[in-house]
């Protein structure tokens, strides 16, 4: 395996950039990353902690709350007098954490199980696939509803459980099928005849083919986890202190008693943020699916 094939293995990454959905999705993800990064900077330099703190800030000049957008508060304030823009930027951090952790765990777990089952075959294959069949029947958001009573779900544990449940389910089965379809091709036998060991075959022949599909499941799991977090927070089932989901939950609770125009304005930013965040990952996934179905072609 020379350098040329080593570089060729990652060609599909560039092809995603040639797809309009991929570009749009990656740009959006970059934008949200910027939002998460810029918040501590703003807090340290421009914003007064007492007024703009996302959790305990309060602006005594802008009463009554929720206040409409103004120069001091570009997106207005929420019913407790906290700055919505500051909360939105802070929430981007939570969503990024949840999405990334869940996505990476799902991808690694599903790839490991799928490739192991496909390569080992026999009993290992049977046992692993029986396990996956069970987890297919467990939709992560609903299981998380049950586990919300059992554990104090914070962002990290929620993401880890989501990744565990999602990675053991259908992604592993699909990845096994893809790995199996490569394993039976002649070049794998050729590699073995030429003296390649198991690790060599897995690393150089199975993984390059399977990884695009793992990335696909990474994006889907990331958006699914962020959505689950938002839904669970929306129903008040998590211990997360501030995320987009808790923002919506909090505003819509007060909204029931005072359906004012300002409350609508406080409700819109987190909803739009969640929708855009999830669709960004979804778009990248679609781009991967449509451009790199056949990395050897």
């Amino acid at each position, binding site marked *: 395996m020379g350098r040329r094939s080593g570089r060729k293995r990652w060609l599909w990454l560039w092809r995603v950039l040639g797809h309009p*959905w991929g570009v749009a999705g990656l740009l959006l993800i970059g934008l949200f990353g910027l939002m998460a990064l810029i918040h501590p900077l703003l807090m340290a330099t421009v914003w007064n902690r007492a007024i703009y703190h996302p959790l305990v800030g309060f602006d005594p000049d802008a009463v009554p709350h929720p206040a409409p957008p103004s120069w001091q508060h570009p997106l207005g304030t929420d019913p407790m007098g906290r700055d919505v823009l500051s909360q939105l930027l802070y929430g981007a951090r939570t969503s990024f954490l949840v999405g990334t952790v869940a996505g990476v765990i799902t991808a690694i777990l599903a790839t490991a199980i799928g490739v192991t089952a496909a390569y080992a075959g026999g009993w290992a294959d049977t046992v692993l696939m029986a396990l996956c069949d069970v987890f297919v029947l467990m939709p992560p958001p609903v299981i998380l509803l049950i586990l919300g*009573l059992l554990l104090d779900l914070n962002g990290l544990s929620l993401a880890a459980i989501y990744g565990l449940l999602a990675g053991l389910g259908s992604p592993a089965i699909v990845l096994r099928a893809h790995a199996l379809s490569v394993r039976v091709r002649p070049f794998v036998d050729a590699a073995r005849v030429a003296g390649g060991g198991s690790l060599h075959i897995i690393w150089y022949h199975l993984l390059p083919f399977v990884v695009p599909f793992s990335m696909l499941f990474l994006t889907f799991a990331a958006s699914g986890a962020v959505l689950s977090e938002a*839904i669970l927070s929306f129903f008040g089932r998590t211990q997360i202190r501030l995320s987009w989901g808790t923002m919506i939950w909090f505003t819509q609770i007060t909204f029931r008693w005072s359906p004012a125009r300002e409350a609508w304005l406080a409700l819109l930013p987190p909803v739009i943020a969640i929708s855009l965040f999830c669709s960004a990952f979804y778009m990248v996934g679609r781009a991967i699916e449509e451009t790199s179905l056949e990395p050897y072609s």
Partner: protein
Amino acid sequence: MDRAMVRFIRYRLLRAGITLLLFQTLLFLMLQAMPGDFVSTLIGLPPPLRRGLRAVMGLNDPLWQQYLRWMRDFFTGHLGTTFRFPHQSVGRILWSLAPRTLFLFLPASVLSIGLGYGLGRYLGGRRRPWDGASLTLTGGAIVAATSFPPWVAFLLVQIFALRLGWFPAENVLRTSRWVGVAVPADTVILWLLGTGALMAGSFYLLGHVTRWHQRRTCLRRVGAIALIGGAVLAWYLSGWGLLALDLLWHLALPLTTVVLLSFGEPMLLMRLATLQVADEDFVRAARAKGLPPQVVRDRHMARLALVPVLARFLIQLPFVMLGSLVVELAFFWKGIGRELLIAIDAHDVPVVMGIFSVVGTLMLLAHVLLDVLHAWLDPRVRTAIAPGMQR
């Protein structure tokens, strides 16, 4: 049916059975790990009464006894006894809630797959330079706007129920209209579902019978008007017309929510599948034959592209039921999803187990059915998966 097929089905069923057993064991252990039990959620009971209740409900028995009892209840179809009401089996509760859940999700599934099929077919058939960008925008917008379920429900309720007042915001029926009515709502719901199925069947037959007739468009229109008119007249004459109208009126918003939430996926899949089929030889042959583009699209491309879309949808159907728990909750729709959430909060373990097991069993059956169909259509699959064969 050859021997390989029989062996394949036997193997697939055996695997499904083992999966179900493992699934239930895991679920049972998870629910047992929840802190506290049903009795501990009741406030203000004296300790002797608590002890008595635990003894009556069998919560003091060793774990393996509770597990065996649950297994027995599941395989006899009784599904255990709920903790919250005296002497009520979980099976009975689920049967009584099933019509309402089906009333929401059967029409919603049919509508969303129909809408996704039609739109995806249309989008897949168009190939002009500027379509790429516009499709990206519209597709992204649809996915973005409908990706957060509680929000869609909230928006619809705010606009159409609270501002405009066109539709009711919650519940399955208006109680005041049903006072003094002898017939239960579930019966009317079942009759409505039956009418829907009958209409769908008749429309299919109508299209099939008039297929080769010269004036089929005219005939079909007349037939459709007659069918719809007949159904409306029958409901009017039955005396339940207003009751049915009340139910349908309450159905409008939740139905719209579920359809909006679930039509995007079939649409995108259908578009992709249509595009993939577009370069096949038989499509080119049909086009070369001089058939109009619309006929090529509808008769030749879409038919083949429908298979993967239907397959994915069939697999997701029980998930749709569980996943739209959010919709049931948002609209106070007294269905199975809402019952599950209430049961989880109340530590009503038998009900939670029952709902999960029934949904899991349905899902496993769907998978088996799909695999068997696949094997039946493609002989290579049978020999590839059945045991004893070289992979």
